[in-house]
Every structure is written in C-alpha cells, then in structure tokens.
C-alpha cells in the first residue's frame, strides 16, 4: 500500500495516467460518471434562505440574507442580488488566508453572471417602493471542503438557497417615512429559472472527464463549464484556455449537460418536497 502512495506523491502524472488508460479514475468512476449529490435546504435557521450541497467530497454551504437598501439611481425599480463565494483555508491546502484569490473571484463573478444571464430572479420583484426601498439579497457561499467542481456545487447551492428564501412583508408610510418590517417571514421568493451547470475537465483532446475531483483538475488541462437554464437554453459557457476543443466535442458536452440537468432537477425537487 505504501508503495502505491509513494508512486502517487513522486510521479502523480504516471499514477493518474495508469487509471485513465483503463477508462477509469482513481476514485473508481468512469470518465463520464458523476459523483453522488446530496442537497439539503433550510440548514441555517438564522438565514433567510440556505442550502447545503455535497458533491462527492466537495461541500458548499449557501446562506441568503436580505437587507433593506435604497435602489440604484439608474434602476429605481430593481433590487440587488449579490453572490459572493469564500474559499476558506480549511477547504484545501492550496488556499491561503488573506484576500480572495483568483478562483474565489472568478467563481463569484461566474455566479453573478449566471443570475443575470439566466434571469433567475426578476429584480423588479425585489423592489418595495420604487426609488426609496428595495431588498438587497446577500448570497454568501462558503466552501468547506474543496474536492473539485466548485462551480457546479456553488451554483446548485445558490439556486436552492434562493428558492428556499422567504422574506417578511414591509410597510412603508409615505408621510412619516417609517419602515415597518413584520416579524413573520411570509413571502416566498419567486425563482423564475433554475440553471444547472456541468463542468468537464479536458484531460487530452479525446478524453473528457465529467465532474472532476481536485486531482482530476490538477492533472487535466483546463475545464469547460456549461450552464443550462432548462433543457434547451444555454445560459453560459465558460472555458478559460486549456486543451483546445472542436465543435463536435461542444455538441457532446451539451448532450452531457442536458442529462445532468435532468438528474439535478430531480434532486432539487426531492429536497424541496421533504
């Protein structure tokens, strides 16, 4: 057993390749097999909405907190949704303390773009009184354990947490400018679409690995992420450098993504029924 571990540490490339050649990966999955997903909603009682996602070992928690704010002058009848992801040092030895690194910033921006592109929530419904009051939803996503595929897990957690969010009724008296917020949270947030993302690591020009672990990501040569709004609408594609792909491969990835949408939508529906 120790000889095998020694091989993994000294020569990670050839160790990994020996699995790939046999159409498998070190965690006994095939190339296009995804890890099991567990989704739990309302895990944080102090937040207005929350969800915890476990994608294999990758653990991500999303909490949504709503605050009252003044709408932007340029868009006086729209509220705000601000996603932010934090990678804590406990999640991986590659993450250090201090300001957010590139991965956290790129993923935060990715989440913000998905919310905008896929029209997850109509920002007009977040407005309480045009020009005066609106809701600002702070969506904090925290990664507790990073074992690859942060994008998929955090998007799933974010969308589930938004669907779980309930807001209290707010009364605004025009004359006295007094804001009264009810204690009971009665208004469920209306989620218009539930985008699902699929990440595929490109190991070589022919070998593509679905749902990569941290090891797959470091051995591979780039990732491609496809976000589908529903089974036919492509919300976002993101591929930053890495192995080059041909248009046939893009079609193959889209089919994989469509399958993934079906699986994850089922899991989301199940989590909300219980």
């Amino acid at each position, binding site marked *: 057993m120790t000889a095998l571990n020694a091989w993994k540490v000294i020569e990670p490339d050839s160790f990994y390749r020996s699995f790939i050649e046999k159409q498998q990966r070190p965690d006994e999955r095939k190339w296009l097999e995804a890890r099991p997903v567990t989704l739990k909603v309302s895990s944080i009682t102090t937040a207005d909405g929350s969800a915890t996602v476990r994608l294999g070992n990758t653990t991500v928690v999303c909490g949504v907190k709503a605050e009252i704010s003044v709408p932007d002058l340029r868009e006086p009848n729209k509220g705000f949704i601000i996603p932010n992801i934090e990678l804590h040092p406990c999640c991986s030895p590659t993450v250090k303390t201090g300001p957010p690194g590139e991965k956290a*910033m790129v993923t935060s921006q990715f989440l913000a773009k998905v919310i905008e*592109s896929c029209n997850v929530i109509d920002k007009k419904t977040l407005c309480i009184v045009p020009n005066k009051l609106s809701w600002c939803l702070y969506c904090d996503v925290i990664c507790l354990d990073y074992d690859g595929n942060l994008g998929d897990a955090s998007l799933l957690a974010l969308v589930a947490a938004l669907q779980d969010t309930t807001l209290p009724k707010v009364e605004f008296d025009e004359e006295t400018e007094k804001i009264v917020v009810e204690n009971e949270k009665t208004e469920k947030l209306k989620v218009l679409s539930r985008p699902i993302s699929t990440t595929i690591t490109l190991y070589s020009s022919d070998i593509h690995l679905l749902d990569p672990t941290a090891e797959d990501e470091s051995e591979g040569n780039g990732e491609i992420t496809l976000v589908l709004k529903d089974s036919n*609408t492509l919300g976002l594609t993101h*591929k*930053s*450098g890495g192995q080059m792909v041909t248009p046939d491969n893009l079609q193959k990835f889209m089919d994989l993504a469509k399958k993934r949408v079906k699986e994850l939508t089922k899991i989301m529906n199940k989590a909300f029924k219980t």
Partner: protein
Amino acid sequence: MAQHKGELNFLSRSDGSALYSIDDTVILASVHGPSDVKVSNRKHDGLHLDVCFSPRTGSSNIGEKTIEAIITHTIKQCLLAHLHPRAGVTLTIQEMQSGGLDLSVSINASCLALLDAGIQMSTTFAAVTCCLTSDDVCIVEPSEIELKESKAVLTYVFDGTKMDVITTHQEGAFDCKQLLKCLAKCKTVAKDV
C-alpha cells in the same frame, strides 16, 4: 466585418507592444520578458505569466480580475513555457477606449504583443466576439448599441493552426442549437483576423 487595426512596437521601453482596435474599442498591450520573477512565483519547469488589465477609468476590481484570468489561461495554452524555466513574463493591458469588445480586442492585442516580443508560442490565436439579438440573428463584431440590445454576447478564441476553440466566454441565455451556428460564423471571421 468591422474595421480592424493593429500596430506593433508602439512603446519604446517594452520588449514587445501592440495597439489593437476594432471599431471604437482600442486596447494597448505591452509585454516584458522573459525576465526576473519573485522567488515565490518561480517555477522550476516553465515560465510564469502575469497579466494585468487596467480599465480606462476607475481601479481594478473583480470584473477586471476575471478578464485577467481568462487571458492568462488562454495564453498559457499557447506559450512554450518550458523553454524559459524560472523566468517570468508580464503582460500589461491598458484599455484606451471602450466600445464593448474589450475581451476579444485584449486577446488579439496580447497575441501581437507576444509576437513582437519574440516569445516562443506553439500557435497564434485570434478572438472573435459575436452577439445574438432577440430575433436569433448572429452579428459578428457588434457595435456598442447592438451589444446593449442583444440577448447574449459570446466571445471565442481560436488557435491559428487547427482553428480549434481555446476559450469561450458567454453572457446571456439562448437556445442550444444557436451555439454551433455562432461558433461556425465566428470561425470564418477568425480566419481573417
């Protein structure tokens, strides 16, 4: 096709520089290297690439950082990094004028600047942006007004030899079948770039 203009060796003090413009978007890229790099960033088997994107107004924040990340990964794929171990290349991108096509112009400018500096690359690359209007018409290299009214904006980076896709970046939702159509259209334009 929109008006493309490129000028090499624009700056006198850098190893390589290029000024690239498509219509109203003008971007200046400057390359320094291969040269010294901090000990913490030194890689024993290859080149370390540092990309810095400065917007025209304001300071650099998360939006700029994502552009830098996309450009870094795209270039890493094309550079022959193993030829310069323990060295570093700094690529600075300055936005001179914004017409909405920042990402693709930056990438094209970076390619020219790297060529001007003489840093070995395995392939050149070209970036093309297209937008999809609400009637599902694909416009390549749109103007700022067309961008604002479109429902999706896509940027593709193609490599120079096999015309495969190195990078894609997309904002806005549209039907899956449109993806391949836009890709094919961008490919034909990229050949000219």
